[in-house]
């Protein structure tokens, strides 16, 4: 090989180039994984629920007159849990999957800064998660409102009128996904059993502490996400009723700070840590 080509090592990569390179490497793996398929199926439950709703509403004896959009609004809590689960699955996999599979060495021996590697992979995880979440939100919204409108109200008014709210929903859920992915990426890079920590954080701390009156809830991302949500559903209704939500500006700043802090923490941890593949040491 080298008789025809004298030693010609590859290009030097800057940090942004390394991040892009890692993103392109990781994206196909994230998109075409079994994990993505399972999450996609779970997300498909929302439009399926919308179909069930339309079916039941079409039965005169059921006497359902509530508009589809109200049910979509009530289902927003489901969407937020879906965001949590997707972030948990995708975020912990960024580093932990490479450690479990003992393939991390192939990545860290490339001329890509470790922090860039982590951020690029996290970006690929977010992209995949964003496709899943957006598909769930948009399909759920469409079937609930457009289906309801065309079948029972004779038009697409509800669908069109509530489109701005859909835009807010998408921004909010995709932003929440980014925040949680950085949190779980840090957990995956730092801890030997990221799933236990992740489940405790996601479905313990974030799901319950966010609704406890007082200052403790300000230590959760869910508190700020709920405060930005245009929907009053489930626990969110209780929060709205007690007027305990944070202001919009405060919420956006807090979420941005959480995202930045955990992204930096994850990158710093990954750059400094030595990863052992001897399972007896974990």
């Amino acid at each position: 090989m080298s008789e025809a080509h004298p030693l010609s090592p590859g290009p030097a990569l800057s940090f942004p180039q390394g991040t892009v390179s890692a993103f392109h490497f990781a994206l196909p793996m994230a998109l075409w994984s079994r994990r993505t398929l399972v999450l996609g199926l779970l997300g498909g439950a929302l439009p399926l629920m919308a179909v069930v709703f339309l079916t039941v509403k079409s039965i005169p004896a059921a006497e359902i007159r509530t508009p589809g959009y109200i049910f979509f609004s009530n289902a927003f809590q489901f969407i937020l849990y879906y965001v949590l689960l997707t972030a948990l699955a995708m975020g912990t996999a960024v580093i932990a999957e490479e450690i479990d599979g003992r393939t991390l060495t192939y990545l860290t021996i490339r001329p890509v800064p470790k922090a860039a590697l982590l951020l690029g992979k996290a970006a690929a995880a977010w992209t995949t998660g964003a496709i899943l979440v957006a598909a769930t939100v948009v399909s759920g919204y469409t079937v609930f409102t457009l289906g309801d409108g065309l079948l029972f109200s004779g038009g697409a008014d509800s669908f069109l009128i509530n489109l701005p709210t859909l835009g807010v929903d998408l921004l909010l859920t995709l932003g929440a996904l980014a925040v949680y992915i950085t949190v779980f990426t840090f957990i995956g890079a730092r801890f030997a059993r990221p799933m236990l920590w992740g489940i405790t954080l996601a479905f313990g701390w974030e799901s319950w502490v966010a609704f406890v009156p007082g200052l403790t809830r300000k230590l959760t991302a869910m508190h700020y996400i709920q405060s930005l949500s245009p929907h009053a559903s489930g626990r969110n209704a209780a929060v709205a009723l007690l007027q305990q939500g944070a202001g919009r500006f405060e919420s956006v700043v807090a979420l941005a700070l959480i995202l930045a802090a955990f992204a930096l923490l994850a990158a710093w941890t990954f750059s400094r840590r030595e990863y052992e593949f001897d399972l007896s040491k974990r």
Partner: protein
Amino acid sequence: MPIHDLSYRHWDGPLRGAGSRWRVIAEAGIRLLLARRRFAAMLMLAWAPALVQAGILYFALTGVQGVDLPIGAQFFQISMAIQFLPLVLVMVWAGSGLIAGDLAAQALPLYFAKPITRLDYIAGKFGVIVFFLLLVYPAPPLALFLLAAGVAPDLTFLAQNWWVGFSILGYGVLVAVIGSLFILALSSMARSARIASVMFVGLVIFSDMLANLASLVTRSDLPLAFSAAKNMERLADAMFGLPSSVGIPWGLSLGVGVLVAVWSAWTLARRIRPVEIVS
């Protein structure tokens, strides 16, 4: 003088029966997990709520002034509900990697190179997880029940609540068996304990959310049968003889549990094979 042959000698004694080979896998798995200090610490912590309740129970039954708490079926049902978190943690920690780990290490051909059947393998793995689930789920409330029977000033408590012990045991065993089969099935569908954990959490939590949503949409309680948590609650209410807020028949909840167990067993039978075909 006769010189004895000190070279290798074949074992000509009796071999353990085929029916007990699963125990080797189970015992090895249990020992391996107990050797992990953090897991052992978590098991001990799982009994902490029971310790607190033991204090409450003692004061209530011995008539300490100011403690007026009826100790009966509801008390023990709540005690079991409190053990739900340790149950989930053990399923995730101990159960999710039981088969996934073997698949990742390509260890199944090693297992089946020995004279064991697939049933031995599955039973052995089942033995590991069900042991720990029984340890953290029915065992603490059962211990509380026995404590109550012991510290009660007379036989009134036992006369009125003798059946509660059987309820604790029956319900606990039912949940442990179905839960064990379920987590093993999920573990057999992944090569990573992490992915099995995500599937488990997703299905358990999402089944509840979807069931609530469907119930809202259809204005019927029937969709609640899709919720793992609601089915557990309904079965618990039935077995402890308590009125239920979940409006589905307990037979339906039991049927769902049996269906989950059957699906899990079918999945395990399909997934556990000595040879892997890479397409």
